[in-house]
C-alpha cells in the first residue's frame, strides 16, 4: 500500500473553545496536486498551517512519511520542514524589501550559497514568473496579481519538494487565476513537487488536481479524484459545489459543468429520449501552447474559443461547457449531423480568420495553434463521459494558424 507523504490522524484543533478541526483524517500523496475545498471559515488554512508546523493539534497526530511528527527529533523535523514551502493567502511579502530581496531572503538566510549563485537563482525565478522588470520595486508598488507571483517565486526559489498554496488565486481575474493554476501544474510537471492547494476556483482547480479533499464541519467529508467527486451523489457535495461553482464558467463564459449536466438531462427528458442528438468536442493542445507561448496566450486562445463556440452555436440551440483544461463539449439537440458538420466548418473558418490573428498579434516566437473537433452522435442512454469518450476518438484538426515565419519549422 502506498504510504502517504502527509497523514492526519484524528486531528482536533480548538480556538477559544471553538472546534475548527474535529478529528480530521486525511492523506496527501507524493507528486500529486491535492486540492482542499470547503466553505469559508471551515479551517482550510488552519489545516495547512498544521502541515508546516505553524499550528499543532490539540488532539490526534500528524505523520510525515509514516512517522509521527511529535516523535521526531528537532533535526529530523527541521529536515522535513526544509522540503516544505508555504505560499500565504495574503502573500506575506516583506514590504520594506524589494522584490529581489524578498525572493532572495530564504536563500540568504538558510543556505551558504555564494552571492552570485543566489542572484542567478533569483533572476531565473523572476524571469520564469515574468517579473524581471520589477526587481527593484517594493511589493506595495505592484498589482495584486504581481504580488501573488512574487510570493509564488519566493515559495519556489528554494526548490521545495512540497509546496502549500493557501488560496493562491484569490482576487485575480479569470485569466490570471488560470495562469497561476497553470503555473502550478507546469511547475509540478517540471520539478515534480507535491502541491497542496486551498482554492475555490471551480472548475479550473479541479482540472489540475489529482485529488480533492472536501473539508466539511471540521472533518474531511470526501477525499478522492475529481471523477469520483462528480459521480458521488451526495446532497452536501451538491450544495457545496453549486454554491461556489455558480452558473457560468468564469474564464470562457460557457455553462458550468453542473448547469450543463442539468440542461443535458432536461433535453433528454423533453422528447429527445428516443432520438439521437449530436455533440461536438472542441479542443486545443493547452499544455503544448502554454509551454510554447506562455500560459497567458494559451488561456486567451481557450477563452476566445469558448466565446466563439457560445456565440456561434448558442443561437442554434446548442449549449456548451468546459470539461477539462483544453476541451469544450457542445450539445446540439436540434441539428442533424450533416448540419452540424457544416456549422463546425463555418465556425472553424471564422475562428481561424478572425479570432486567432487577433490573439497572436505581437507574438515574437514561432508558433502553430491547432483547434480540433470531434463530432459524434449520442443516444439517450449515453452519459456525458461516454459522449466525451466517443467524440475524443473522432478528433480532426479544423483550424490551424501559424506565425508564417520561414524558419519556423527549425
Amino acid at each position, binding site marked *: 500500500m502506498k504510504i502517504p507523504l502527509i497523514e492526519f490522524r484524528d486531528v482536533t484543533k480548538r480556538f477559544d473553545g471553538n472546534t475548527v478541526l474535529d478529528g480530521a483524517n486525511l492523506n496527501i500523496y507524493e507528486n500529486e496536486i491535492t486540492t482542499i475545498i470547503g466553505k469559508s471559515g471551515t479551517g482550510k488554512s488552519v489545516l495547512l498551517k498544521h502541515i508546516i508546523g505553524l499550528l499543532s493539534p490539540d488532539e490526534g497526530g500528524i505523520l510525515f512519511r509514516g512517522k509521527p511528527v511529535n516523535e521526531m527529533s528537532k533535526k529530523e523535523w527541521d529536515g522535513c520542514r526544509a522540503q516544505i514551502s508555504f505560499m500565504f493567502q495574503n502573500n*506575506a511579502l516583506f514590504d520594506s524589501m524589494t522584490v529581489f530581496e524578498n525572493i532572495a*531572503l530564504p536563500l540568504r*538566510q538558510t543556505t551558504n550559497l555564494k552571492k552570485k549563485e543566489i542572484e542567478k537563482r533569483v533572476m531565473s525565478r523572476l524571469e520564469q514568473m515574468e517579473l524581471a522588470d520589477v526587481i527593484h520595486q517594493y511589493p506595495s508598488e505592484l498589482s495584486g496579481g504581481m504580488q501573488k507571483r512574487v510570493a509564488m517565486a519566493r515559495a519556489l526559489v*528554494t526548490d521545495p519538494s512540497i509546496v502549500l498554496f493557501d488560496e493562491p488565486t484569490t482576487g485575480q481575474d479569470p485569466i490570471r487565476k488560470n495562469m497561476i493554476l497553470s503555473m502550478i501544474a507546469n511547475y509540478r510537471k517540471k520539478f515534480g513537487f507535491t502541491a497542496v492547494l486551498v482554492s475555490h476556483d471551480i472548475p479550473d482547480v479541479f482540472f489540475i488536481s489529482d485529488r480533492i479533499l472536501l473539508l466539511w464541519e471540521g472533518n474531511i467529508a470526501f477525499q478522492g479524484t475529481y471523477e469520483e467527486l462528480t459521480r458521488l451523489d451526495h446532497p452536501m457535495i451538491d450544495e457545496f459545489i453549486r454554491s461556489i461553482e455558480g452558473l457560468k464558467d468564469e474564464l470562457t463564459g460557457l455553462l458550468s459543468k453542473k448547469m450543463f449536466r442539468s440542461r443535458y438531462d432536461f433535453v433528454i427528458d423533453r422528447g429527445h429520449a428516443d432520438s439521437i442528438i449530436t455533440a461536438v468536442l472542441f479542443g486545443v493542445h493547452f499544455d503544448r501552447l502554454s509551454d510554447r507561448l506562455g500560459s497567458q496566450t494559451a488561456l486567451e486562445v481557450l477563452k476566445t474559443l469558448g466565446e466563439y463556440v457560445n456565440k456561434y452555436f448558442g443561437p442554434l440551440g446548442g449549449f456548451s461547457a468546459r470539461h477539462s483544461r483544453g476541451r469544450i463539449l457542445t450539445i446540439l439537440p436540434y441539428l442533424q449531423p450533416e448540419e452540424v458538420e457544416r456549422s463546425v466548418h463555418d465556425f472553424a473558418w471564422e475562428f481561424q480568420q478572425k479570432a486567432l490573428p487577433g490573439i497572436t498579434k505581437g507574438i515574437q516566437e514561432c508558433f502553430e495553434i491547432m483547434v480540433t473537433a470531434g463530432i459524434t452522435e449520442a443516444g439517450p442512454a449515453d452519459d456525458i463521459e461516454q459522449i466525451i469518450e466517443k467524440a475524443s476518438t473522432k478528433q480532426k484538426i479544423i483550424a490551424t494558424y501559424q506565425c508564417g515565419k520561414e524558419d519556423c519549422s527549425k
Partner: protein
Amino acid sequence: MIMASDIKESFFWSLFHSLGKKTMRVINDLGAAVIFFALAFLRIFRPKQFREIVQQVFYIGAKSSNIVMLIGLFTGMVLGLQLYYTLRKFGSEGFLGSVVALSLIRELGPVLTAIMITARAGSAMTAEIGILRISEQIDALYAMRIDPIRYLISPRIAASVISFPLLTAFFDLIGIIGGYLTGVVLLGVNKGAYFYRIDAYVDLTDIRGGFIKSLVFAVLVSTICCYQGYFTHLRTDSYGSKSVSLSTTSAVVLSCIMILISDYVITSFLM
C-alpha cells in the same frame, strides 16, 4: 435577600480576585519576557547575524545620535544655568564643572538617553515587529525556516547593547559642553576651574556606573519593545492595527517606567 455583609464579601472577593489575576499576569509576562530575552541573546552569536546587527546599529545608534546630542546639549545648558545659581548661594560656583559632569555621567546621561532612544527607536521596533506579526510575515519567516527570534529580535538587542553606551557617552560629552556654554561663556565661571574640577572629581567609578546603567537600560528597552511587538497578536484588548498601536504605547510607557525603577535599584547598589 441580599445582606450588606454579602455585598462587602463579594466586593472584597472580586477585589482580591482581580488583584490576584493581574499579579499572576504580570508574573507570567515577566517570566515570558525573561525567556524571550534569553532565547534572543543566545541567538546573537549564530551565523549570518553581523549584517543585521550592523544595520540595526545604524538605525538605533547612528540615526538617533543627532536627537540625543541635541537633548544632551540643552540638558547641559539648563544644568549649567540652574546649578550656577544654586552653587553661587554657597559661594562655590567653581564646582560647576564637576557637578554638571557628575549629574550627567552618573544619572541624567544614561536615563535621558535611554528615554530618548525608547521614544525614537523603541517605539519603531514595536510597531515594525507588530506589523510583521499581524500581516503573517513572522509566520512566513518560520515557514521559510528563518528563526524569527534570531532574524528580528537578536540583532535589535545586540544593536541596543552596542548603541546605548555609545549614545550615552555622546550625551554626557555634549552635556558637559552645554554646561560650559552657559556656565563659562555666558555666566563667566572660570574656564580652567570648570575643566579642572571635572578632572579632579569625576573618576572611573562614576563612568562605570553610568556605563552599567546604559547597558541595563539597553537590555530592558530592547526586550520590552521587541516583546510587545512580537506578541502583539496575543493581546486580548484589541486586534489588528489597533493592537499594534496599543502595543507601541505599552512598550514606551513600560520602558520608561522600567528605566526609572531600575535606575533607582542600580544607583542604590552602586552607592
